[in-house]
């Protein structure tokens, strides 16, 4: 797991992947999100669970050789009630 930065109730993960075409990027989004969630849970469970993930911010940075690095910030807090 490649770790990025850390902030108040958010953790960043760096996920290398093959550079997608625009159409592929739409399909790949779901995989990227699930990989980030899995990384988050491997670090933060059992204190935080899937339901405590409040938001995910995904960016991509082109790498050489047909690869990209997705940087994914996973925000979390103890969710008791749904947000209005």
């Amino acid at each position: 797991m490649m770790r990025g930065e850390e902030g108040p109730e958010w953790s960043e993960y760096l996920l290398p992947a093959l550079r997608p075409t625009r159409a592929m990027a739409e399909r790949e989004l779901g995989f990227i999100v699930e990989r980030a969630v899995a990384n988050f849970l491997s670090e933060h469970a059992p204190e935080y669970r899937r339901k405590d993930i409040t938001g995910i911010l995904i960016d991509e940075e082109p790498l050489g050789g047909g690869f990209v690095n997705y940087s994914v910030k996973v925000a979390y807090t103890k969710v008791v009630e749904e947000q209005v």
Partner: protein
Amino acid sequence: MSVIQDYHLMFSDLSSNTLEIIRHTVTERGLWRVSKEEGFDLIREMYEKISSVYGFPTPSLIEDSYEYYFIPLERIGLPKVSLVSCLHEYRHHMQKMSRKRFEDVEVDARGWSISAFHYALPEDFDSAWRRGRIWYLPPYPGGE
């Protein structure tokens, strides 16, 4: 890690047009009263109007399992209708357009979205805070 608590006071100078669009979406269009499908359509309309205030392209919105903003495609995902959540993700879109006040993008988005709710709909904000329905705020002062 220090805890930031005053998210609702961070953007006291928020655009009055934006606040009016939020008020209109909630009180006159009934964001919290309509069906989920209608609620998503109202959020799309609200995004369009707020984007025209700032001169930004409008992000797309889809229903998905998690709340997110995918920067390259300017796409927002939401699992349910939530005013604060949809504003939070919209702020990430604004950050892409170089609108950012706080270095930490999550702090910036929490501050903008919670402040927008606070200043647009102060009574609803107070009630939601009291019921613990705004993430990242501390317990309501003085308890329930």
